[in-house]
């Protein structure tokens, strides 16, 4: 008998379970977990400088309620990310214009933006049009002019229609061309001040915290994020109502003649109407402005999010109404909606000390004839901190002007020019002294907050000492779910429904992560549709009753699988989270953990309203990147174990509106803010003519947090059973990118198998009170290609939440829960088959005779990759003879294979030789060598002639392990570590002669894999004889000097060629060539962080030295070690 606490859906439990606690859940009652608006949060809205507040004002409020305590960033050094004259915070039209004005004046400018795109007033609000307000189009501000496309037919001279993607790109290009450095996905955290002037700003992002030193800061955020960090204080919000607009984008609407539509009073739209705006695509493309009145409750975290959530709900009710009652909308597709509301996000700031104001040079902005505005209205308590947002002390008319793109541009241009003209008086005279370059950041061991200490491993940054910072608590919860994506949203629903006080923090303005803003709109044919997934499907069916399921309507071939409308799915998840009673904190990221020893007890969250802390009994890391676990010090592997290269990432495109296209082509290190920004900019340029890109960079892979067990591809192939299985995943081997699996190298692409996930893979080593879900759980690079499918990760999130609830209710740590009891519950929930409760797992061992029989079952007439030739939905259940043999003890398997090899010939001998090679036996070498050399007799490298499932001949390698068969054999020969590789390597070098870059684009030619295969063999062999042919390959112009030192490279094939150059460099170094080390050193400062990381980790592995990414030091070491530098064969092959 097992005692069970109360769980989501516990009513399904059999009666023989005794429940220790019964809570009468009312599923749709928001306050059931103590989360009513009033008593939900015990927080501080007040910062440490509350004493300066004027009686009628409040200081920068973050939360709305009283503090229960604070946690502290101790005084410490931070890496200096940039030094500049002017730091612009906020990339709306005001920020862009200010940045341009300063840059044109010759200032060095950095612009940070918390989103990953610019032009907020048009893009984030989903309002891609400009009302001219009496101006002719030619008179619109320069920043807006740059956003206008000549190819769009304009409706007259009263209004200009825009295209989102063009707006984002045009603004970005303008800044890049002016030398402005853009940093995305970063939040202001703390001011660096000295007396009356600022000297910089601390920002927070997925890389932790960094300092940006600057002589002046201009706050252009709609939330006045920088001003909130100062002691200026704000007026109380105006009483009465404020209008906010949430805009919906539709296509497939029948032509509408009205500019507004009446809607029923219960929809709570302003004046009971919605406004209609035609889109640039013409007669079937419209935007619907849903303007609503909200009482001015405040601008702190919760009331802002409450308002946004309510706006979501009301606008979806409008969608339903339009679909059901307005004939023109009968066929409409809801394509997109606002990420932010159009409206005011901050109160007016207080007046600083009169003396300070009077010390400022007078100036007036002549924004219109009748209402000149004093520049002092934009001044703060620091002479060099100014704002261009609604916090300015200006009239309501000027506030209105600031809300419009053209008004924001006009104010920004005029004010920035004033600041330039008075620079000597206003700006800091110089930048503060730093502590010099250092790779390692000094941190106080007494700190309760743990964070990522440097944006890039091994890179030296100047260090800046910053003062301590107190962080108010926003809340104390039972379960904090970090990341509301594929796993996290379900985890939050399940945790809250189980009666636990739950908070979910997400970086996006909506839930679903990869399954919504990441551009994935279907379960494809993967995964298990049971359990929580079945519930989501049912809920989506209801929503698809009034929101068209875009996938079914628009894609060229209709997939026989579950699909959804991305907007609909986001709303469904929000609705479920709300009904469950979890607190939502979105548009925010976790930048550090609160720790008690090795226990995670909370998190530090950067929000647009400031930095807050959250206490939690248990944290679920659903970031997908393992951010929380990594901050806490859990061990992890980034990308593949052998070289830390992840699969490609994607910034999803939409074209036409609402129809997603994902193109996974480049790599990103999400833990490096430079690289994150670079990848976003590359992604945005992939599909310039598309309608838009989503606001979330979706990495297929980043960190794999190591648990006590790591799931591998070998586990998939042997269909490994685990005692502590808690979920069963299913999918094909969807490896999009470089891989380091010997199974794939030899040509064996796994079939569609069910994969058991052990509970231990969710619990990180060394860290307590933390569970990891999403694609970052403990599965290696090759395994993650299969186990990361949407439905499986959704269920995994829910299962993890159940486990955490179980731990809390039984008073044990998540590491020590009774997994058997959890499994029983999962069986009840239809998430596990009942057989897991009864089975007796034994590892299968074969006798020599059995192995001989298995070898006879090898079928060389079938290619190894044909195991993957399965339709989605088909399950592979048989044992694969070759796998069974190759995973048997070598002492038994090798003799059996050698015997069979002697008795075989032709294709069978080659197949047996490949199996021997897999076991590292050199006895396979001659057979493989002979076969390869016979295939290399022509003057061209043999091509891939048959498509691999899901990756046809035209796709770009490396993709889905589509490798020419001869390449597979070369990989196998390499595994034998035989010198017979040398003649093969020489022959490949002789006939490898691409003359056009186009030859690298297709699987058919397989060029990527030929280089990788010979390099892999050379690595394992470690022979100086490999140097000459490897050098010859390196002389090819496509594989030479591919490093990129600055800027961005839009063409992804260049990155792949650079990766090949690194692969060659590594092979050369392992063969004893100093030139190989020099190639690697050349990449240490490559702007593509994954490549720089590859170079760095390889240099460390080969030399045993660690000079970080300091090229000078590495060069010095190489100089002094030229003589005597010896081959160093790769000792261990990775278990793929």
């Amino acid at each position: 008998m097992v005692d069970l606490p109360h769980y989501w859906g516990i009513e399904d439990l059999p009666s023989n379970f005794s429940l220790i606690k019964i809570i009468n859940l009312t599923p749709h009652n928001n306050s059931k977990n103590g989360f009513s608006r009033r008593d939900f949060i015990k927080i501080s809205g007040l910062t440490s400088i509350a004493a300066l507040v004027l009686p009628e004002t409040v200081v920068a409020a973050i939360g709305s309620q009283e503090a229960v305590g604070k946690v502290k960033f101790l005084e410490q050094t931070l890496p200096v990310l940039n030094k500049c004259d002017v730091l612009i915070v906020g990339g709306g039209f005001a920020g862009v214009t200010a940045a341009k004005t300063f840059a044109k004046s010759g200032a060095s400018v950095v612009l940070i933006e918390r989103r990953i795109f610019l032009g907020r007033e048009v893009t984030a609000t989903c309002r891609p049009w400009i009302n001219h307000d009496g101006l002719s189009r030619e008179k619109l501000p320069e920043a807006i002019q740059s956003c206008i496309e000549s190819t769009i037919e304009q409706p007259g001279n009263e209004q200009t229609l825009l295209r989102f993607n063009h707006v984002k790109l045009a603004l970005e290009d303008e800044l890049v061309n002016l030398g402005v450095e853009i940093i995305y996905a970063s939040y202001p955290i703390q001011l660096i001040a000295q007396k009356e002037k600022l000297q910089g700003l601390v920002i927070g992002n997925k890389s932790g915290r960094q300092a940006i030193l600057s002589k002046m800061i201009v706050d252009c955020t709609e939330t006045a994020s920088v001003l909130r960090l100062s002691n200026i204080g704000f007026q109380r919000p105006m009483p009465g109502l404020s209008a906010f607009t949430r805009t919906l984008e539709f296509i497939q609407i029948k032509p509408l003649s009205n500019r507004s539509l009446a809607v029923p009073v219960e929809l709570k739209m302003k004046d009971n109407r919605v406004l209609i705006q035609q889109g640039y695509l013409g007669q079937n493309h419209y935007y619907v402005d849903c303007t609503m009145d909200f009482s001015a409750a405040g601008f702190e975290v919760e009331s802002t999010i409450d308002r946004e959530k309510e706006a979501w709900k009301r606008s979806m009710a409008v969608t339903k109404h339009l679909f059901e009652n307005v004939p023109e909308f009968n066929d409409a597709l809801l394509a997109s909606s606002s990420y932010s509301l159009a409206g005011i996000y901050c109160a007016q700031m207080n007046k600083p000390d009169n003396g300070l104001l009077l010390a400022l040079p007078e100036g007036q902005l002549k924004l219109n004839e009748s209402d000149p505005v004093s520049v002092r209205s934009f001044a703060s308590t620091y002479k060099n901190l100014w704002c261009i947002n609604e916090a300015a002390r200006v009239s309501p008319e000027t506030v209105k002007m600031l809300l419009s793109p053209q008004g924001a541009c006009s104010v920004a241009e005029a004010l920035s020019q004033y600041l330039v003209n008075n620079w000597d008086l206003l700006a800091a005279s110089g930048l503060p002294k730093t502590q010099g370059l250092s790779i390692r950041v000094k941190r106080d061991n007494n700190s309760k907050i743990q964070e990522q200490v440097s944006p890039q491993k091994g890179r030296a940054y100047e260090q800046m000492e910053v003062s301590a910072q107190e962080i108010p608590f926003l809340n104390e919860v039972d379960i904090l779910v970090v990341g509301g994506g594929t796993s996290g949203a379900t985890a939050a629903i399940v945790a809250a429904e189980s009666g636990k006080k739950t908070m979910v923090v997400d970086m996006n303005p909506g839930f679903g992560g990869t399954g919504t803003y990441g551009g994935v709109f279907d379960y494809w044919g993967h995964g298990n549709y049971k359990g929580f997934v079945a519930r989501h499907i049912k809920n989506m069916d209801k929503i698809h009753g009034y929101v068209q399921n875009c996938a079914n309507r628009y894609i060229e071939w209709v997939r026989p699988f579950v699909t959804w409308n991305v907007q609909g799915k986001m709303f469904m998840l929000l609705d479920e989270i709300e009904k469950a009673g979890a607190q939502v904190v979105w548009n925010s990221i976790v930048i550090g953990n609160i720790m008690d020893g090795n226990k995670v007890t909370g998190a530090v969250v950067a929000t647009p309203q400031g930095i807050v802390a959250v206490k939690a009994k248990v944290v679920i890391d659903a970031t997908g990147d393992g951010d929380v676990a990594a901050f806490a010090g859990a061990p992890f592997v980034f990308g593949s174990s052998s070289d830390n290269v992840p699969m490609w990432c994607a910034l999803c495109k939409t074209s036409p509106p609402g129809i997603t296209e994902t193109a996974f082509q480049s790599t990103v290190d999400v833990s490096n803010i430079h690289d994150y920004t670079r990848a976003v900019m590359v992604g945005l340029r992939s599909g310039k003519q598309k309608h838009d890109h989503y606001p979330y960079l979706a990495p297929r892979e980043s960190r794999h947090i190591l648990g006590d067990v790591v799931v591998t591809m070998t586990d998939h192939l042997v269909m490994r059973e685990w005692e502590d299985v808690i979920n069963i995943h299913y999918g094909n081997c969807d490896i999009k990118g470089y891989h380091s699996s010997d199974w794939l190298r030899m040509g064996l692409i796994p079939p569609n198998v069910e994969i058991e996930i052990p509970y231990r893979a969710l619990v990180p080593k060394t860290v307590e009170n933390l569970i990891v879900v999403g694609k970052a759980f403990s599965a290696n690079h090759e395994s993650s290609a299969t186990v990361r499918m949407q439905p499986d990760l959704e269920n995994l999130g829910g299962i993890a939440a159940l486990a955490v609830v179980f731990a809390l209710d039984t008073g044990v740590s998540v590491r020590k829960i009774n997994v058997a009891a959890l499994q029983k519950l999962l069986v009840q929930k239809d998430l596990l088959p009942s057989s897991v409760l009864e089975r007796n797992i034994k590892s299968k061992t074969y006798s020599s005779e059995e192995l001989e029989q298995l070898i006879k079952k090898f079928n060389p007439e079938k290619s190894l990759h044909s195991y993957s030739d399965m339709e989605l939905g088909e399950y592979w259940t048989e044992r694969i003879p070759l796998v069974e043999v190759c995973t048997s003890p070598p002492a038994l398997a090798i003799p059996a294979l050698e015997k069979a090899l002697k008795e075989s010939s032709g294709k069978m001998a080659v197949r047996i030789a490949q199996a021997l090679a897999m076991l590292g036996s050199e006895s396979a070498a001659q057979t493989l060598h002979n076969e390869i050399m016979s295939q290399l007799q022509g003057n061209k490298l043999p091509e891939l002639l048959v498509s691999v499932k899901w990756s046809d001949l035209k796709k770009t390698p490396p993709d889905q392990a589509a490798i020419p068969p001869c390449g597979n054999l070369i990989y196998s020969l390499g595994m034998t570590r035989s010198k017979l590789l040398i003649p093969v390597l020489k022959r490949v070098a002789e006939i490898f002669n691409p003359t056009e870059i186009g030859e690298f684009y297709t699987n058919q030619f397989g060029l990527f894999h030929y280089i990788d295969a010979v390099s892999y063999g050379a690595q394992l062999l470690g022979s100086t004889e490999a140097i000459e042919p490897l050098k010859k390959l390196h002389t090819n112009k496509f594989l030479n000097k591919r490093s990129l030192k600055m800027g961005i490279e839009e063409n992804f094939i260049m990155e792949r060629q650079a990766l090949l150059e690194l692969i060659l460099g590594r092979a050369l170094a392992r063969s004893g060539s100093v030139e190989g080390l020099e190639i690697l050193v050349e990449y240490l400062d490559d702007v593509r962080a994954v490549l720089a990381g590859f170079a760095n980790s390889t240099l460390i592995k080969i030399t045993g030295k660690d000079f970080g990414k300091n090229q000078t030091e590495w060069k010095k070491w190489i100089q002094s070690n030229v003589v005597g530098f010896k081959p160093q064969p790769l000792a261990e092959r990775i278990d793929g």
Partner: protein
Amino acid sequence: MIRLMIFVLLSMINPMGINLAFRSQLREVNTIIHKISDENDPLSSDEIIEQRDENGVPVWFYRDFFKQVCTDSTCKMARLRIYWDGAGNYNKFQLIENEPLTKTDHSQFTLADYQKLNMILADTGSILKDLKMDELIVKNEDNRQVDAVTKPTRPSFTQYLVPDAAYTCYTLWHTTYGVTRDSILSFLDQMADANFLKKVLQTNESNKTLWGISFIDRHADFQASFCDSILNLVNAANQTISRKAFDYFLHKQIEVPEIQQKLTSRVELFPRNYQLELVQRLSKMSNIDNGAFLNFINAYIKGQLDAGMLKSVFETTRPTDWNDKDLINSLTLLSTDKNPFVREMVKKLPVVNGKKN
């Protein structure tokens, strides 16, 4: 009906605005017949007809084709006339009355299909360029991505093709960019002399001017004499011409000091993106002409160049001689400039106020 429809369609999409009346008038003035040998296409006409304007500059070329156009299983002959403009770029096609193009299901092309075909043929970089014909359709064994339709077009290609007319599109694209076009380009090369090039550059027609600049780029003999003409085109109102002219200089010409001087002396006339590209191009050279460097400074002093651009010049390029008197004088002037950022920039240069930093 079809003929009328096609005529209307092609008039709409014809960028040169050629109509039948105009053509017949020109025919009386200057029509040239070129005989060609096209062994692979013996059924089509062996003549390319060229029409020239009153200055002797080609207006268009055409050739009549009699092509075998196949669907998935049946082949049919199609008569059509393809036009190229005076620079050898695809212009339009015409069909014989009552002989419309048809699709796999034997239905006739619609107006939208003709429009799409026209767009496909106008696309010089079409995906059809590198494909083999049998790659366009889904083979039976590879039919897993679509509903069961007999040999449908591959889903990934449908946006590039007229629905159910993959082979037709393929055949006509390769006809348009095959032997005939090569011959036309060859005629143009043979015609080119200084007089002809001068007239071509004066047409203010994008395609012809682009061809003229490309020709000069390929023939060094003409470069000196046409330098100023092309320089003037950098400021042409026509963006395509302007871009081509600017790229012409940035490609190689800029390595000549005189060209650097000429370009920088007009820098204030260039849009900012051109200015930036010019600086970036100059930054790739170890040194630039002193006069060119001074031209940038003078443009700033006159208020014709923004300080941000001057900063790029200072940070990324180096004059040949820092000790040049004029340069020192200009930098001295800048060291007291009212713009604080400019004063800072000058401090970082090797020479300020006549002294080495």
